[in-house]
C-alpha cells in the first residue's frame, strides 16, 4: 500500500520536493524496523539522519519488502496447495509480484542512481533471506553485503549534493542515457583517484552540463584507457556482465574460488542442471506418496503405503493430498463428477469408516472400528487393521 501510494504521489506532483522527503523519512523508519527484524545483513542498515542515506534506505526497503513478500508464499505453500490457492486467491501472490515494480518506481523517481543499484541490492537482500536457511552461504553473505556497503556509502557523499537540486527538474524526464551516465559514474567511482588528460576532459565535460538533463553518456575514464564512445559503451557493458557474474559466483556454492569465465559458467550450468534434476526426482517421490482408494490394481501399493500415510497425516497433509489428486484427475480428462466421487470416497474413508456404504459392512474388519470420532479417526487407526481393511475392501469391490 505504501509504495503504491507514494508512487502515486511521485507521479502526481511535478515541482515540489517536500513530499518526497516525507515519504523517504517514512520509508526510512520502515526500513529500520525491517532491518531490526532481518539480522542477517546489518551492514546495509542506514545511518539515521542524512538526506543522502535516506535514498539508500529507499533502496533497501523495496528490495527487502519484495523479497520478504516473495519468501513468504514460497515457504508457506506446497506446489499443489499453491496451485489450488492460485485459482481462488491467486490475486494475493500476484499482488506480491506486482508490488515489486511498484516498489521500485519510487526510488527511480527520486534519485537517478537507483535503477542499477536496486537490482544489485535486491540480489544481495535475496541472498540474505535464502542464506538464512542455507548455512554455507551465510558466510559469504555478510562479506557480500559488506562488499556493497562501501559502494553504497561512498555514493551518498558523492551524489548527495546533486540529487537534491536536479530532482525537481529531472523527475519528469528520465532518458535512458542519464541512467547510463550515472551508472557509469557509480561504476567508476571507486577508481577515480588518478588524473590524466583524458580523465580531465571527461570530467570537464561532465561539470559543464552540471545539473540538467544530460543527452550524452558522461563517464569518468580510468587512467590509461581510451575514451571514445565505442570502448566506453563496451566497457560499461563488460562491467555490467562482470558484476552479474560475481553475483552468480557467490550464489553457486564453490564458485568463488574459481577464476575465469568459462569454468564459472561450467559450474553454473552444472548447478542449474542438478537443480532441475532434483525437481524431477522429488516430483517422482511425491507422486509415489499416495494411491486412490477406488483405483483397482494398486493392491501392493495400498497395503504398503496407505496405512502409514493415513496415520501420519494431520489436517493439512490430508488437504494437500486432496488437491494433488484433484490436479491429477484434471489431467485425466477433467471429469469433475468422478473427481468429486473419488474425493468423497476418500474423505469418508478417512473420517467415517464405519458409516460408509454397504460395501464395507460386508467386511468382517469393520467391527474393529467401534466409534472413531472425526477428529481422532486419523490417529485412532491401527495400521495393521487399516491395511487389512483396505485389502479386504479392494477384494470386495473387485
Amino acid at each position, binding site marked *: 500500500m505504501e509504495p503504491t501510494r507514494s508512487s502515486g504521489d511521485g507521479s502526481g506532483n511535478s515541482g515540489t520536493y517536500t513530499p518526497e522527503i516525507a515519504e523517504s523519512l517514512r520509508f526510512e523508519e520502515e526500513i529500520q524496523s525491517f532491518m531490526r527484524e532481518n539480522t542477517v545483513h546489518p551492514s546495509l542498515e542506514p545511518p539515521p539522519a542524512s538526506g543522502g542515506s535516506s535514498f539508500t534506505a529507499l533502496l533497501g526497503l523495496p528490495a527487502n519488502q519484495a523479497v520478504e513478500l516473495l519468501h513468504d508464499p514460497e515457504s508457506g505453500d506446497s506446489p499443489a496447495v499453491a496451485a489450488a490457492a*492460485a485459482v481462488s486467491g491467486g490475486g494475493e501472490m500476484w499482488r506480491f*509480484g506486482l508490488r515489486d515494480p511498484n516498489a521500485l518506481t519510487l526510488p527511480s523517481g527520486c534519485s537517478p542512481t537507483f535503477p542499477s543499484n536496486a537490482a544489485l541490492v535486491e540480489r544481495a537482500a535475496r541472498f540474505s533471506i535464502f542464506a538464512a536457511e542455507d548455512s554455507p552461504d551465510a558466510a559469504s553473505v555478510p562479506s557480500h553485503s559488506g562488499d556493497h556497503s562501501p559502494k553504497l556509502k561512498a555514493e551518498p557523499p558523492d551524489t548527495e549534493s546533486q540529487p537534491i537540486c536536479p530532482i525537481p527538474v529531472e523527475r519528469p524526464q528520465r532518458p535512458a542515457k542519464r541512467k547510463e551516465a550515472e551508472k557509469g559514474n557509480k561504476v567508476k567511482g571507486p577508481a577515480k583517484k588518478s588524473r590524466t588528460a583524458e580523465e580531465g576532459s571527461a570530467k570537464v565535460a561532465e561539470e559543464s552540463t552540471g545539473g540538467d538533463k544530460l543527452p550524452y553518456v558522461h563517464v569518468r575514464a580510468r587512467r590509461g584507457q581510451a575514451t571514445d564512445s565505442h570502448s566506453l559503451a563496451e566497457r560499461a557493458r563488460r562491467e555490467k556482465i562482470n558484476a552479474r557474474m560475481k553475483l552468480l559466483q557467490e550464489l553457486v556454492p564453490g564458485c568463488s574460488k574459481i577464476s575465469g569465465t568459462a569454468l564459472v559458467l561450467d559450474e553454473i550450468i552444472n548447478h542449474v542442471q542438478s537443480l532441475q534434476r532434483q525437481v524431477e526426482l522429488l516430483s517422482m517421490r511425491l507422486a509415489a506418496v499416495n494411491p486412490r482408494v477406488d483405483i483397482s490394481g494398486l493392491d501392493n501399493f495400498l497395503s504398503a503405503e496407505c496405512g502409514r500415510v493415513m496415520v501420519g497425516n494431520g489436517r493439512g497433509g490430508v488437504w494437500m493430498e486432496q488437491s494433488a489428486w484433484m*490436479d491429477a484427475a484434471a489431467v485425466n480428462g477433467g471429469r469433475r463428477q468422478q473427481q468429486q466421487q473419488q474425493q468423497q470416497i476418500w474423505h469418508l474413508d478417512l473420517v467415517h469408516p464405519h458409516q460408509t456404504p454397504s460395501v464395507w459392512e460386508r467386511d468382517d474388519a469393520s467391527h474393529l472400528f467401534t466409534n472413531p470420532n472425526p477428529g481422532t479417526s486419523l490417529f485412532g487407526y491401527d495400521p495393521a487393521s487399516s491395511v487389512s481393511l483396505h485389502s479386504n475392501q479392494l477384494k470386495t469391490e473387485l
Partner: protein
Amino acid sequence: MSFLQRKRAIKLTADVAMAFAKDGAKWSHALIMNLAKKPKNKTLLRSILGSEYERLTKPCLSWKMPRAKKILQRSFKMHSRIKKGARRLPGVNAASVHAEAAVTRTKVLKRLVPGGEHWDNSSLLEETLDYVISLRAQVDLMHLLVKALNVPNLK
C-alpha cells in the same frame, strides 16, 4: 491415473507455482508459455491458473529483443570481428580459446534457462540468477513436502 501421469502433473504444478510466484522476471513468462504450448498440459494449466490463463499466455513481445537491436548487435559483431581479424596472430591463441569456450557455454546456458534464446548476455545472467534462486527455493519446498508426508523410501 498412472504413476508417470501423476509425476508429470506434479512437476507441472510445481513449475507453474514457481513461475507464478515470480511474475516480475522474464523467465517465468517464458516458462508458462512453453508449458502452454503442449496440448497435454492445457487442461491442467487452465484449472490451475483460472482467470490468469488468458493474461499469461498472450505472447508478449516486449521482452524479446526487438529486431533493430538484433541488427545493431550483428553489425557490431561484424565490425569487431573485422578489427580483430587484422590483428590476430596465426595459430591458436589463449584469448580466442577462452572466448570460444565462453560462447559455447553461454549457448548451453541459453538452452537451460526457459526462454533464454532471446535475451542478450547480460540479461541472460540476470535471469539465470533469478532462476537459480527460485529453483533452489522450489527444491527446498519439495524436500519439506516429502518429509511432511512421510513418503516411504522404496528401495
